[in-house]
């Protein structure tokens, strides 16, 4: 929310302070969700906080909290600027607060930029590593390019409506003009870029691969799902007037994304890169929310965001500590670290969408939302087939961990870390059985 930006300025300190700050934020957020706002600032048509955004925000903050708790130590290992890294993470969080609740396109633009610029920096933060440098530059160039496209879109939208307000712009033009359509399309494209939808996903694997693993974890999860919140908010009010061509376009993008993400992930040797591709595939699934844009879609997106963030952060928390990030690196992990291996298995199962994990209901809601729109059953079938493909590469990790022999060099971890991981796994399982525990926040 608003205050995150102000708060974090003073909290660019060490991990524990970060945790404290995040707890405070989370508390404020949840409180606000229940209607206890501490401050009330007149946002003058810039931001609007409602359930969906707040809940989304809470999830992001909670995930960040987990991220900091699980991987905080690893952040410190990246370089000499620990405090700065945390600050950047908080800046991003501030941006997320904005994009989950903007009503003005200007806020969208600024929010996206606040997310992007620190991301470029975090990507390049491992200055000794050429891969990191390269990833950073790639990310930056392509990101700036997509920003240009976004601005073009906003400009065109403004051209037709004379306002930057999302809602009013929609109200004024019942039948859509070419200019507006082009504007929306360009916006769609640039946001697709941000959440890495095919065919605008090309930056993702390289950047995620090149960035320091711990930041990949952050970017691939929290930053990405925030993009979807922005997506939803943008198209929520405009969708109805956009016509069947757009629906078809989104369908094509979904299929492409699923295909690119899943198929390319199959061949990867490095777990990190595999996760990068899988994050593309997951984005394809999340795009269903945009495709159908109904209650189920929103519920599903929330659940998806939670399930995906928790599981991916968990996996990355282990991956960060691994010396060998390839699949072979995991050989024999089940023997040396049975508990962690078990927990990782739950995470992977969740990503694959196996029942009894949150991932299942997430996917379920997504598919349900599509079915609810009518007869787009072909799309559902394609989606489930690709989900089967996704099981293929997620289970490769499980196979390596449990069924293959090998020596894993894995540093000793604190029992606190282990308990936390177990707790995360427990949350995933509980959400997998009772998704309502989370979704009830949407309605009360």
């Amino acid at each position, binding site marked *: 929310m608003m205050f995150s930006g102000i708060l974090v300025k003073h909290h660019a300190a060490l991990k524990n302070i970060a945790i404290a700050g995040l707890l405070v934020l989370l508390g404020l957020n949840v409180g606000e969700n229940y209607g206890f706002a501490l401050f009330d600032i007149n946002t003058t048509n810039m931001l609007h906080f409602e359930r969906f955004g707040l809940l989304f925000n809470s999830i992001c903050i909670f995930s960040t909290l987990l991220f900091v708790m699980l991987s905080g130590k690893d952040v410190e290992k990246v370089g000499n600027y620990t405090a700065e890294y945390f600050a950047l993470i908080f800046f991003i969080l501030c941006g997320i607060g904005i994009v989950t609740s903007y009503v003005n396109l200007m806020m969208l633009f600024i929010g996206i930029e606040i997310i992007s610029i620190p991301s470029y920096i975090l990507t390049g933060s491992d200055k000794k590593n050429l891969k990191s440098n390269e990833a950073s530059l790639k990310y930056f160039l392509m990101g700036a390019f997509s920003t240009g496209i976004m601005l073009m879109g906003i400009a065109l939208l403004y051209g037709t409506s004379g306002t930057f307000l999302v809602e009013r712009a929609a109200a004024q033009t019942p039948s859509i003009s070419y200019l507006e359509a082009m504007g929306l399309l360009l916006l769609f494209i640039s946001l697709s870029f941000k959440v890495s939808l095919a065919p605008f996903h090309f930056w993702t694997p390289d950047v995620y691969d090149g960035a320091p693993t711990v930041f990949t974890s952050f970017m691939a999860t929290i930053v990405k799902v925030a993009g979807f919140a922005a997506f939803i908010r943008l198209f929520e009010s405009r969708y109805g007037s956009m016509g069947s061509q757009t629906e078809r376009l989104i369908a094509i993008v979904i299929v492409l994304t699923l295909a690119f993400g899943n198929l390319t992930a199959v061949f990867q040797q490095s777990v990190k890169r595999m996760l990068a591709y899988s994050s593309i595939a997951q984005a394809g699934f999340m795009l269903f929310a945009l495709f159908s844009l109904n209650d189920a879609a929103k519920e599903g997106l929330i659940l998806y965001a939670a399930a995906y963030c928790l599981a991916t952060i968990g996996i990355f928390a282990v991956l960060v500590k691994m010396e060998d990030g390839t699949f072979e690196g995991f050989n024999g992990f089940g023997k040396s670290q049975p508990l962690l291996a078990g927990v990782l298995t739950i995470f992977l199962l969740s990503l694959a969408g196996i029942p009894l994990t949150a991932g299942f209901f997430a996917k379920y809601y997504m598919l349900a939302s599509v079915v609810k729109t009518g007869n787009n059953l072909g799309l559902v079938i394609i989606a*489930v087939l690709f989900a089967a493909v996704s099981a293929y590469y997620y289970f490769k990790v499980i196979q390596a961990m449990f069924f293959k022999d090998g020596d894993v060099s894995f540093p000793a971890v604190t029992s606190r870390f282990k308990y936390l991981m177990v707790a995360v796994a427990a949350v995933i399982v509980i959400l997998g059985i009772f998704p309502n525990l989370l979704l009830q926040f949407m309605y009360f």
Partner: protein
Amino acid sequence: MIPVLLILVPLISGLVTLFLRQEKVSKTWALFSSVITLAIAIFGAASANTSGNLLAFDASWVPTLGARFTFGLDGMGKVLTLLTAIAFPVIFASTFKNRYSGSNAFYGLMLFSQAGLMGVFLAMDLLLFYFFWELALIPVYFLCSRWGGERRIAVTWKFFIYTFAGSLLMLAGILYLYYQTPDHSFAMRSLYNIELTQRGELFVFWTLFIAFAIKMPVFPFHTWQPDTYEQSPTAVTMVLSGVMVKMGVFAVLRWLIPIVPNAAVRMSDVVIIFSIIGMLYASLIAIRQDDIKRLIAYSSIAHIGLMSAAMFADEGVATQGVVIQMFSHGINVIGLWIVADLIEQQLGTRKFSELGGLAQKAPTLAILFVVMALANVALPLTNAFVGEFLMFNGLFRYNHWMAGIAGISIILVAVYTLWMVQKVFYGEARTGVEMIADVSPGAKYMLITLVLVVIVFGVYPQPLINLTNDATKILAQLK
């Protein structure tokens, strides 16, 4: 109350087992808890339907979705929970001597899969059913991949992906169904009353049926099965072929035919023809196998083919036969696996070309195996006869020629089963088989128990038949 117990007892004891590090303790505990489950299942099967909450359970689950925790124990459920409950103690006891590294995980996963199976047979809510459907699969995947044979990883992998893809298709079908119910729920009752367009019915039919067909497996979706059976540890193979393949059959009877009866009728010719092709095909292939496990696997495909054909014959008789046969086949095939396992454990081979003359060294084993083999052939006065008799009967009512062609398989089953008996037990004893000891007490008593079940239900099948009556009633109501 009983349904919940049937699921919770294995689930919780499975969790407990994970923490029992000592091999002996975890084994004993698993056996113990499975016996308790068996007691509950017998009590449940013996209870009358009228006793209120005893056999049913209902609680809120995901209200926004309309999904509920609804469990119920009807006749068909009774038969299959009973089978599941019998299968696990038998498996545990007969493989008591086998050693598994990390036995706590092994037995824990076994119990989890039992809980999943129970859930599948008890769920009266489609989403819940799907849940347990997967829950039963995952532990088995781990069991096979961890404790299986040499090629286990690749083989189980295929098995998993294959069935998982099927499940996901089913999920698509479930979703579609969900939005077609008037009250947006997964409850069996509202699904049974659903009215779909012709296209909708066909869509649901195929998405669900393919999932079930992969699980059963029906030709041509069966190729995962022989490899998986061959590579899995035998205890798991017993679960797979004894109980798990019944999930597919059960699901067709419970969730497919009643929900989309018109599509089922329209597609019955196709399904039956494929099933019959599968029966003959699997039987012919079985004749050429050189491995006990593979032979039993193909034999299992042939048997399942008959069930699949009979289910779609749209005849009450056949349906009852299918339910009975699910039970009988489960018992029989577990018996065969026990023997196969004993042989493999002692001699280290399953190849016919390396076996022979075991009857001289292990007469008791030979006799018990022959009885099981004869049950596999569905000789009268064994339990399988009743089921096959009813199934063929129904199939015959459906179409005389199809029944006739399908009947060829009862000739072929004799060919390959007796061939197996002959190759393994008869003839001159080969070098290398001398070291076989006759059957160990644990396995022996289990086999004797199974043989008794085979014969008792073969001679007096009426209790089983009575349990299956309501399966027919449901179908009859739909007509």
